[in-house]
């Protein structure tokens, strides 16, 4: 990590070189180092989940299934879902980028509770290890939703250890959310009013609300499932008098808002990318900030749309359907504001911008198909088909993972002090976009034609589309491996980035890259609004950075 740079540059003390050795990392309370620790953890879980995804796609190359038997296939998609949702998508952006950037962006020295922050990383890994243990011992086949009575009575797989793993990892989410909320409330630098907070921070604030208020409910729910399974009780099991729909209510009370936990930070990153690379004030700051909070709040009112065909009351279904439409309003506000920001902006096609634009397109696709699903009648038709699978992968993979990678590229110079290879990175972004669409667009068609999800075999007429999807997945895999390779390469050989390579307006760009251990030499005093590109005369355009030249000069003639 901390290698001698090939080009001799002015040495400055930063968070990476203040101390060395394994313990200086494992016992650190520095939010930046913890962010990097999380980066290692979630990358590991991403590839574990990706491994199962690969197996699923390979298996579905032929109608009768090539690779594994039916029972093993059930385990494959379950473990793909559980690992990706609970151990990658939910933590990825908040714990890596959020941890690293929230204190920097508000001008604080650290998060409010640094030791809790470190504890949350250990708790997360403890939960993850239990999950890996369940996988190693033979896996799990309940689907990531753990619906009883299958999960509590019939399944012969390692439900209890998996549920316990998620229960434990949930506490890490709660601690992270709590830390962000308190930090944003109490640790802002002088002059950093709520109206001047970058929208990255606003979105993380909204995400933290969901973390704090939703996660306890999934914790108690999964605990009840575990207790029911161990002691053969009947809380959810109808054969013992319980009510399985109650589980679904409790589960989706968390797990639907959890979707917003995944996508709100993605929106956070995209907002930053779009403004920076349009070199323009964000259009409608107040609306975007309010939309973040609105998504967090309305997101808690829609969980019942997962249960339209589960025996829920018809009246409840109607209400949930209408409320689900409401969530489209703040989401659309964001999309319109991003596009309005692009309008007459001075756009540069840097790699992070490619990811940002990719996010907008794919998120719109995912969001619009979400409206199909919240329509009662249509949902009965496409429920539990590949249409649903494609829909949420457009949001989760097309949205969150795109934004996560975009954010990593954008802040990589800040994190490592070095640039990644721009040409290769652009290539990888394009590969990802093509691979993604080839993988998941056919699944919309498959679902609409009636191919059910979670089946290990399918009718032969679906094969062409399935092969397309598998081919796309292999392209996607290349797109994921490339950044991994060149990020590692750039840690040693990348050109030195300088404090503000793009240049961006946030406080994080005022400090050195990588930042010093306490973030700022002098606590900044904020006298400007967020994204105030026209009035920030301290920013030089184009940025004098080796290895990267913006496409246009600033200001435009």
């Amino acid at each position, binding site marked *: 990590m901390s290698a001698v740079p090939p080009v001799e540059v002015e040495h400055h003390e930063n968070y990476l070189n203040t101390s060395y050795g394994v313990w200086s990392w494992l016992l650190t309370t520095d939010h930046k180092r913890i962010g990097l620790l999380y980066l290692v953890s979630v990358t590991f879980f991403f590839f574990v989940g990706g491994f199962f995804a690969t197996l699923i796609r390979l298996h579905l190359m032929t109608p009768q299934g090539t690779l594994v038997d039916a029972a093993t296939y059930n385990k494959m998609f379950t473990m793909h879902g559980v690992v990706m949702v609970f151990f990658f998508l939910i933590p990825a952006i908040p714990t890596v980028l959020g941890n690293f950037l929230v204190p920097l962006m508000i001008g604080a020295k650290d998060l409010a509770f640094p030791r809790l922050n470190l504890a949350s990383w250990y708790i997360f890994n403890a939960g993850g290890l239990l999950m890996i243990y369940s996988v190693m011992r033979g896996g799990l086949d309940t689907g990531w939703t753990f619906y009883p009575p299958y999960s509590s009575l019939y399944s012969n797989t390692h439900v209890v250890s998996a549920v316990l793993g998620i229960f434990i990892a949930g506490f890490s989410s709660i601690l992270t959310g*709590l830390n962000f909320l308190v930090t944003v409330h109490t640790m802002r630098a002088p002059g950093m009013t709520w109206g001047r907070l970058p929208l990255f921070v606003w979105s993380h604030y909204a995400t933290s609300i969901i973390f704090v208020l939703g996660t*306890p409910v999934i914790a108690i729910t999964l605990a009840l499932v575990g207790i029911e399974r161990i002691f053969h009780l009947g809380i959810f099991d109808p054969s013992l*008098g319980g009510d399985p729909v109650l589980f679904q209510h409790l589960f989706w009370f968390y797990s639907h808002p959890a979707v917003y936990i995944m996508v709100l930070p993605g929106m956070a990153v995209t907002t930053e990318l779009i403004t920076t690379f349009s070199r323009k004030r964000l259009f409608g700051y107040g609306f975007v900030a309010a939309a973040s909070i609105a998504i967090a709040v309305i997101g808690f009112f829609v969980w019942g749309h997962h249960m339209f065909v589960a025996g829920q009351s018809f009246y409840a279904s109607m209400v949930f359907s209408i409320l689900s439409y409401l969530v489209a309003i703040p989401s659309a506000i964001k999309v319109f504001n991003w596009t309005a920001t692009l309008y007459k902006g001075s756009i540069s096609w840097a790699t992070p911008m490619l990811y940002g634009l990719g996010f907008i397109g794919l998120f719109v696709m995912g969001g619009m198909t979400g409206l199909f699903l919240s329509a009662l009648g249509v949902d009965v038709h496409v429920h539990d088909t590949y249409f649903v699978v494609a829909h949420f992968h457009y949001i989760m993979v097309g949205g969150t993972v795109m934004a996560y990678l975009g954010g990593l590229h954008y802040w990589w110079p800040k994190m490592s002090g070095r640039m990644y290879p721009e040409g290769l990175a652009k290539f990888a972004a394009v590969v990802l976009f093509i691979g993604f669409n080839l993988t998941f667009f056919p699944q919309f068609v498959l679902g609409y034609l009636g191919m059910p999800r979670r089946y290990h075999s399918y009718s032969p007429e679906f094969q062409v589309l399935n092969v397309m999807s598998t081919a796309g997945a292999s392209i996607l895999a290349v797109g994921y491996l490339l950044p991994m390779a060149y990020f590692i390469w750039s840690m040693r050989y990348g050109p030195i980035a300088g404090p503000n390579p793009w240049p961006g307006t946030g406080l994080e760009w005022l400090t050195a890259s990588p930042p010093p251990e306490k973030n700022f030499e002098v606590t900044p005093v904020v006298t400007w609004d967020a994204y105030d590109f026209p009035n920030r005369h301290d920013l030089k355009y184009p940025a004098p950075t080796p290895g990267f030249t913006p496409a246009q000069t600033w200001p435009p003639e």
Partner: protein
Amino acid sequence: MSEAPYALQEHFRDLEQQKDAATLGMWIFLVTEVMFFGGVMLSYSTARYLHPAAFAAASHYSDPLIGAINTAVLICSSLTMALAVHASQLGERKPLVGYLAATIVLGCVFLAVKAYEWSHKFHEHVVPGYDFSFPGPEARSAALYFTHYFAMTGLHALHMVIGVAVLGVLLVRAWKGRYTPAYHTPVELSGLYWHFVDIVWIFLYPLLYLIDIHR
């Protein structure tokens, strides 16, 4: 740790900011606890709604007198906890130690009564999943009452045990004179936690013992 009775952590501007952050953090934590208990209370509510008769019959196994005694014990412990915080605000070391000790004792009394009550349930063979027999056709639904009874009182008792342990640590530190009018945040925050656990019981008592006396 350090010689100073209180330590300002490096990343805070001043003690006020540090205390502000800690208090806000504790309240947010308590809200997560509200949601945590909320999940199991919702489960209880739906089960009771679906099986009212069985829940009424089953709740007669819980003695309202014992519940009332335990409520009183817990309310008294909340008073001593509040007085402990009061003493720590004024920097009175001996009263602080005394009130903390009293709170711990009352907490243990509560747990002892709870243990008695649980053992009684075991003797009456109404422990679902272990030893359960209930007269009448609604046995299966009545088991749901006892499942929720054990889940809710068990979770509550677990919180009590954690609370007693935390207060034990506070007691030792208070004895050593660690808490001053300038720095007594741990006492305050533990007090908040203790009162929260009290509030949970304030709701559990009527829900589990009282509302079905007449059915």
